[in-house]
């Protein structure tokens, strides 16, 4: 087992390397002089020269890259041009809202979608199945911002049940933390619920046709045990893959929800950085998200070996 884990961890290094190259080139290959872009429209020629020297743009490409990589490995992601503060610190400040939102969204989707998918597969073709699938098609086709604004208008503005916008840290006030998360979680979670419910239904449908399910019933096991212990465990690999991919996508794609609900997370940081052409911050955010993607994938891969004993290390 451990040699396998180490092998899998090492296998992520080339991926991270490729990402680093792309992020590095992002700045160098963007049209125009990066130093001029960074300096902004009103900069003087001196400003631009200063920035060029600061970024090391006057040296050869390869040297620039190695220098930059060396800084990355030391945890130095550069400084924000506008705020003049370390990028890593900026990202760290914004991690909690994004992580909280992503995890709560996925938890919401899992809690709803798995029972839905299992139930639909169990009674495939019945009205239960048809209703669940119709609901999931609907949830899948309505854009996040529509659901978001709908919820804001319905629950917050009309009924005054939940806060409209913003974010409160868990350490500051746990109750407010939860109340602020409800609307964005639902808005963002419905799409994933729909997706996950469909995947669960499809894989469960296949699994429930297997001979060992018939064996389980022939042993006199009750349906919940047949479905969950014998069915769901066998269907878990595709389901976990979808959950992991969903989580990675969520962390990368919170831009819209964070804007709608005014949550100061990574998504908002990204938008601000793009609008201000704050390249070091953009680079840092991309690197951080890529790192999370790779990490999530690694966890998914490693979980397979726990879920299915036939998968060899």
């Amino acid at each position, binding site marked *: 087992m451990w040699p396998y884990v180490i092998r899998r961890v090492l296998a992520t290094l080339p991926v991270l390397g490729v990402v680093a190259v792309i992020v590095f080139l992002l700045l160098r290959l963007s049209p125009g002089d990066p130093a001029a872009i960074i300096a902004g429209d009103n900069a003087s020629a001196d400003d631009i020269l200063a920035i060029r020297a600061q970024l090391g743009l006057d040296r050869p490409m390869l040297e620039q890259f190695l220098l930059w990589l060396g800084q990355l490995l030391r945890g130095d992601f550069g400084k924000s041009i506008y705020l003049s503060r370390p990028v890593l610190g900026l990202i760290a400040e914004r991690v909690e809202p994004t992580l909280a939102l992503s995890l709560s969204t996925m938890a919401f989707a899992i809690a709803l979608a798995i029972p839905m998918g299992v139930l639909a597969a169990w009674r495939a*073709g*019945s009205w239960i199945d048809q209703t669940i699938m119709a609901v999931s098609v609907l949830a899948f086709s309505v854009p996040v911002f529509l659901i978001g604004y709908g919820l804001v208008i319905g629950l917050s503005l009309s009924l005054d049940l939940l806060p409209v916008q913003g974010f409160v840290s868990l350490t500051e006030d746990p109750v407010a933390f939860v109340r602020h998360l409800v609307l964005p979680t639902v808005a963002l979670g419905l799409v994933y619920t729909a997706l996950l419910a469909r995947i669960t239904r499809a894989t469960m449908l296949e699994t429930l046709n*297997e*001979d*060992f399910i*018939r*064996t*389980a*019933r*022939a*042993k*006199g*096991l*009750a349906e919940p*045990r047949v479905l969950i*212990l*014998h069915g769901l*465990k*066998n269907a878990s690999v595709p389901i976990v893959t979808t959950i992991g991919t969903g989580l990675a996508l969520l962390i990368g794609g919170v831009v819209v929800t964070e804007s709608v609900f005014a949550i100061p997370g990574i998504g908002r940081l990204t938008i601000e950085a793009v609008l201000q052409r704050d390249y070091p911050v953009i680079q840092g955010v991309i690197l951080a998200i890529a790192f999370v993607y790779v990490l999530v994938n690694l966890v998914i891969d490693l979980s397979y070996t726990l*879920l*299915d*004993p*036939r998968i060899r290390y």
Partner: protein
Amino acid sequence: MTGLAVSQPVLVVEGLRTEFATGEGHPMVAVDGLSLYVRRGETLCIVGESGCGKSLTALSILRLLPRPYGRIGAGRVLLDGQDLVQVTEAEMRAVRGRAISMIFQEPMSSLNPVITIGRQIAETVMVHEGLDWADCMDRALAMLRQVRIPEPERRLQEYPHQLSGGMRQRVTIAMALACRPRLLLADEPTTALDVTIQAQILDLIRDLQAKTGTAVVLITHDLGVVAEMAERVLVMYAGTKVEEAGVEELFDNPTHPYTRGLMAAMPHLGGAGGGRRRLHEIEGVVPSLMARPAGCAFAPRCELATERCRREAPPLVGIGGTHSVACWVTAGEGVLA
């Protein structure tokens, strides 16, 4: 009293009709008016070509017909006098795996690939006998010993893919017998295995049956298996019983033209000829469920068929002792043939 009690059948099936809803009004009838019984310690073999309804008969007894279309249209399934067709689903669950167990043809796919063998056996015991988990695992270990699996302690912790086909079938037998059922339904338990393993598994079933007195309904394609295992034989054709007799009587005096065809297609009965032959060698094919002929279902393939055969289905009639047959022509010959 004792003599009578021992000969009481454990299972009696009367007029079983198993059908599939088609959505066009008329259901497809897969098993049509089948009756059978089996006594304690006895083995009844059901033989017949692929698709004649053998598996569906067994699944009907356990009420595990394919959902949502399969259903029991008529008949009774009496387990020690209690009609299982009428009991609730919860009562039925208490019967499955405890009073009646089933083993299936495919040892590769009928065990759960992601649950250890020990747990799969132990959970049956837990569900039916409510013992502590440790006691259930002890029983699982004892069962693995009984089915003569080498290194049972280690096997307990292994997954099905780590075992050979023959070993897996031993596991399914261990699982089926863990709660000492009164009746074992074995649906082609050896068909998927190679010949030497087949013989071992059959020996094992016979041994355990002798020890426990379990009644066995053994479904097979293979007349060699019938000769080795059966006390009584039921021959099925297109969802109906066409002949029934004690095993010696049937081999000495096969009466239905279909049964005779099966015997003729099998020259080296249980002999040293090696390759057992399947029942495919009678000319023609089984009629599909939707296109069953009006009279005798075997008529299109029968050399002896008459006008009457094509018009009217022959009833099952006794022709001496426990031998009965459904044929207009040969039933009349009686034991003269």
